[in-house]
Structure formats: structure tokens, C-alpha cells
């Protein structure tokens, strides 16, 4: 150690002047630093600032603690001083806002107490219109509480529902599982001998039949091809018969010509018939005259007949074998 105990108590200045100056400088510097630090810390704590008071009213001030910042646009503009409970059961958050920062708070400002799911509570101020009148000192304003935790039970219920549904879906007898099982059967069939056809028709047998049917259809188509070829040749021949030289059409034309000739003859005959008919007319008119004579003749014949009849009747009455003159009525 540097100290020399034996030099004490003599009453004589023991230190050179330069030592005193050094120590004085050290003390002065230390005092300056200490005072500066204290002043800085007080300044940081807002000791030299003028404040305006603001009271925020909320139903639930849980999570709010003295010293918490009130932020505006992410910048701290005020600090929570203390909390209290009003007579009506509302919680009061007493905030101190520096006079220099009050201009961000207007009468229309909204205050929000944000309670995130994770992390600490945040107190925020929102001002939509900075032209509105400035918030007065000792203002009492309601706080909106945005609590994520409060929506959690609802979320849990919904989640539960979803999980139940998922549970139903993944259960061994669920329709999803059955569908998947069916899908597996189908894909297995697809991978089988008859591939997609087997999957579509349900079994190997059906697929085989289907293939046979297709084969038959193919054969049928082949024979149909032969038929159509034959039909083609038939048609060609028909064509030739009908339209070719000496074909039906030509013969018909001939026949028509002959018919024409016949019709000409018929027409001549008819003219002759016409003449005959004219003659017949003349004959008929003669006959008419004769008919008129016949009338008279007939009347005479009839009168003669009646006389004959009356004669016969006379004979019959006079006839001995025939005495029955009564008239038999049917």
C-alpha cells in the first residue's frame, strides 16, 4: 500500500500543491459528471417538461402498468402515471402527456388499449383529423379495448368443431375413407390386366365381354364393308340397266312412242264413234216418234187384254169346276 502511516498527525501539509490541483480537478470533474448524469436522467424522466393530464376510462385496465407509454403513430407521447378505480366500477388510467406532444391529441382522437395474444398491453392514440380542436387539460376519454384473448374461447370452439369434422372425416368408417377405399379398388383394377376398362366395368369378366363385343363389332364392320362393296356393284349394274343403252329408260321411251301412236289411232276411232253417235241420234229421234205410236198401241193392247180378262173371268164363272170366286186375302 502506498500510505505511510507515520506521516500523519504532524500538522504539516503533507502534499505538494500539484497533488491538490489534481485531486481538485478530479473532484470537480466527478461532481460535474454526476450532476450531468442526474440532470440527464431527470430530463429523460420528464422532470423538466410541462405536462398535461389525461384520464382514460375503461372497463378493464388489466395489463396496464404505471410507466407504460401512450404511443401515437409508434412514438411515445405520454406515460401512464397511475391507475385507479372509479365509484361506478370503471378503471381510470391517468396519463401524463408532455405539453410539446399534446398537439397530436384532438377532441376526436381515439384511444385504444391493445391486448395482444402474446406480449404486453399497448396503449395507442389515433387522430384522424389534426385540424380538430386540441384535447383539453384533465380531459376524461373512453378507451376502446381490443382484446385478442377475449376472442380466444370463440376461436377454440370453432377450432373444436373443425377438429371434430376432421375427426369424422378421418374415422375408419367415414365416407372419405370409404371413398378412398373405393378409389383404391378402382385404381387397382386400372393397374390390372384390363386397365381402365376393368375399373369402369367393375370386373375382369365384364371387361372380357366388352372386349369380345368390340371384337364382334369389328368383325361385323368388316362384313358390312363387304356388303357395302357388293351394294356398290349392284348399284353400278342397276345404273347401267336403267340408264345405259337398251336400258329400262330407253325401252320406256320406245313404249311411250308406241303409246302415242296408239292414242292417235284411238283418237281417229273416237271421231268415227262420234259420227256413229250422230247417226244414232237420228235413229233415236225416229224411235221417239215410233214410241208415241206405241203408246196408243199399248192402250189398245191393254184394253184388249182387259176384255180378254173379263172374258176369262166370265168363262171361269161359267166353268163348273171352278166355283170358288171368293177372294183369298193373304
Amino acid at each position, binding site marked *: *500500500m*502506498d*500510505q505511510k*502511516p507515520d506521516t*500523519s*498527525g*504532524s*500538522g*504539516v*501539509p*503533507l*502534499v505538494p500543491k500539484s*497533488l*491538490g490541483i*489534481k*485531486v481538485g480537478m*478530479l*473532484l470537480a*470533474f*466527478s*461532481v460535474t*459528471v*454526476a450532476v*450531468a*448524469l*442526474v440532470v*440527464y*436522467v*431527470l*430530463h*429523460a*424522466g*420528464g422532470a423538466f417538461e410541462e405536462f398535461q393530464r389525461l384520464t382514460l376510462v375503461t372497463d378493464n385496465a388489466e395489463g396496464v402498468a404505471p*410507466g407504460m*407509454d401512450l404511443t401515437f403513430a409508434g412514438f*411515445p407521447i405520454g406515460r401512464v402515471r397511475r391507475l385507479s378505480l372509479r365509484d361506478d366500477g370503471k378503471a381510470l388510467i391517468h396519463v401524463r402527456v408532455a405539453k410539446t406532444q399534446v398537439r397530436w391529441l384532438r377532441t376526436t382522437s381515439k384511444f385504444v388499449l391493445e391486448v*395482444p395474444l*402474446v*406480449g*404486453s398491453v*399497448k396503449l395507442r392514440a389515433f387522430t384522424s383529423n389534426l385540424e380538430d380542436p386540441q384535447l383539453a387539460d384533465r380531459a376524461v376519454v373512453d378507451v376502446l379495448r381490443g382484446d385478442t384473448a377475449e376472442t380466444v374461447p370463440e376461436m377454440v370452439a370453432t377450432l373444436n368443431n373443425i377438429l371434430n369434422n376432421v375427426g369424422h372425416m378421418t374415422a375408419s368408417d367415414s365416407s372419405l375413407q370409404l371413398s378412398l377405399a373405393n378409389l383404391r379398388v378402382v385404381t387397382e383394377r386400372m393397374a390390372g390386366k384390363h386397365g381402365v376398362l376393368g375399373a369402369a366395368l367393375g370386373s375382369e369378366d365384364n371387361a372380357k365381354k366388352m372386349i369380345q363385343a368390340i371384337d364382334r363389332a369389328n368383325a361385323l364392320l368388316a362384313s358390312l364393308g363387304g356388303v357395302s362393296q357388293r351394294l356398290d356393284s349392284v348399284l353400278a349394274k342397276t345404273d347401267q340397266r336403267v340408264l345405259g343403252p337398251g336400258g329400262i329408260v330407253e325401252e320406256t321411251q320406245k313404249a311411250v312412242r308406241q303409246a302415242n301412236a296408239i292414242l292417235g289411232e284411238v283418237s281417229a276411232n273416237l271421231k268415227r264413234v262420234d259420227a256413229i253417235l250422230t247417226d244414232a241420234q237420228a235413229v233415236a229421234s225416229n224411235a221417239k216418234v215410233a214410241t208415241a205410236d206405241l203408246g196408243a198401241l199399248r192402250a189398245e193392247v191393254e184394253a184388249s187384254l182387259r176384255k180378254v180378262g173379263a172374258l176369262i173371268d166370265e168363262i171361269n164363272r161359267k166353268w163348273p169346276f171352278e166355283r170358288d170366286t171368293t177372294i183369298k186375302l193373304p
Partner: protein
Amino acid sequence: MAFGGEIILQPRSWQRLLRFGGYATVAALSPSSYGPAARALAVRQIYLTAWKVLPAYLAFSALLSVVIIEILRNSEIVRSAASALGRTHVDTALDLVLRVLVLELIPLSTAIFVALRSGAAIGAEVALMRVQGALEDHRERGGSPLHAELAPRIAGAALSVFSLTALSVALAMFLAYMSFFGGSSAGFDMYTRIVGHLFNGFILIGLLLKCLLFGLAVALIPLATGLEAEVGKLGTVPAAVLAGLMKLFLVIGVIEVLSLVIKYVDVVEVLSSLLKYD
């Protein structure tokens, strides 16, 4: 009085300490105590305790600060705690740095440093004076040994503790700013805000009070215990010096723990819960 431990266990020793502490503090604070000789003694004390060790001590505290700052700044735990709290990493880490360094480690290490550097020396000096009867000689010459010999030493040691604490705290705060924000002045507002958050009136008064108590303890206890040495018995000097150091560390520990308890433990709650479960 062969062992320091025996002195510590004596209640009368503590009573003497308290009584002496009261007298000595009053004497150290009264301007009439400081004649030219006493002033010279105080200056010498400060020179030896603070000035000569200043570069070494500042280097030590800078190293300690940088290590603690870097540990907290790069700690993943601090980072995840910050994100869990919904705060920025700088906020959280700087708050921790200031709490750990400025409020606790720097004042404590300064007190211990000064105690080791000067406490033992002052205790030995006073114990020797006592053994040699120098204090009695003083009294016989009509002077007061308390004012002439002891008060300047007490004032010198206390001022040394104050000076070293103030400078190393300023250095630690500067280093904290530099490692978080570099040479840029852009972080100053944020830094000021975090400092303002941390140092409310309660914390600031607590810090000043703690530094004052550390200074008093470092100045008074070794000196008062040195007086326990017996006149003419040179063999009692080591025991008295050792007892002084032990008492000093005990008191420093108690002050530190009490300050932590007051700051971070809700005493009423702990007591009531203890009573409830007993």
C-alpha cells in the same frame, strides 16, 4: 482478539461502530474539521484512493461493462423475451444493461475496489496509530483525533467512492450507447426514452442513497474497527484490520441485497404469503 471473526460476532463492536459512525460523519461534514493539515490529509487520501487508480479502475469497469453489454445484447434469451413481450430488442436489452450495470454492478464493484484498495490500508493505519498511542498523544496535546486524523480520511474515502462511481457509471452508459447505436446520434432519443423509463424518481434516489451508503461503509468501517486494536499490543492489529474488512463486506452485501429487495421484491406480498402458509 486473535481472529477477526470474533470481533464481528460481538454486538458491542457493532454498537461502537454505529456510535463512532455517527460522530465521525458529523465531524466529516462539519467545515470546522478541516484545518490545513486535515485538508491535506483528505487530499492525500483522495489522491491515493481515487486519482492514482483512476486509469486502471476505468479500464477495469470499461471491460466489465463491455462484457456485460455484449452478453445481454447478443443473448438469444433477451431477444426472445423481447419478442414475447412485444417490445423491441434494443428496448429490452438496453433496459437490462442499465439495470445490471448502472444500478448494481458498477456501484458494487467500485465499493469493493475502494474497500480493497484503501479500506485495509486505512484500517491498518488507524490500528497502528492506536497501538502506538498516537491518538492519545493527539488528545493530550489538546486536539481531537477524530477531527484531525479520522474525519479527513473518512471524507477522502467517501469522496473517492463517489468520484469513481460517477465516472465509471458515465463510462458504462456511454459504452452502452456506443455498442447499441454506434457513433450515430440517431439513437439518442430512444436511449433517453429508455433511460427515462428506467430511472424514475424512486430508482434514482435509491441509487444515490446506495452510493452514499457504500461510500460511508467503505470509509467508516475499516477505520472504526481499526480503533479496536489495543494500545501497545502490536499483535491485535491484523485481527482488527481483518475484522474491519469482514464487517465491510458484510455491510456492503447487506446494502446491496436490501436495495435489490426493495426494488424487485414485493415485501408485503412475500411476508403475507409466508404467514399464510405457516
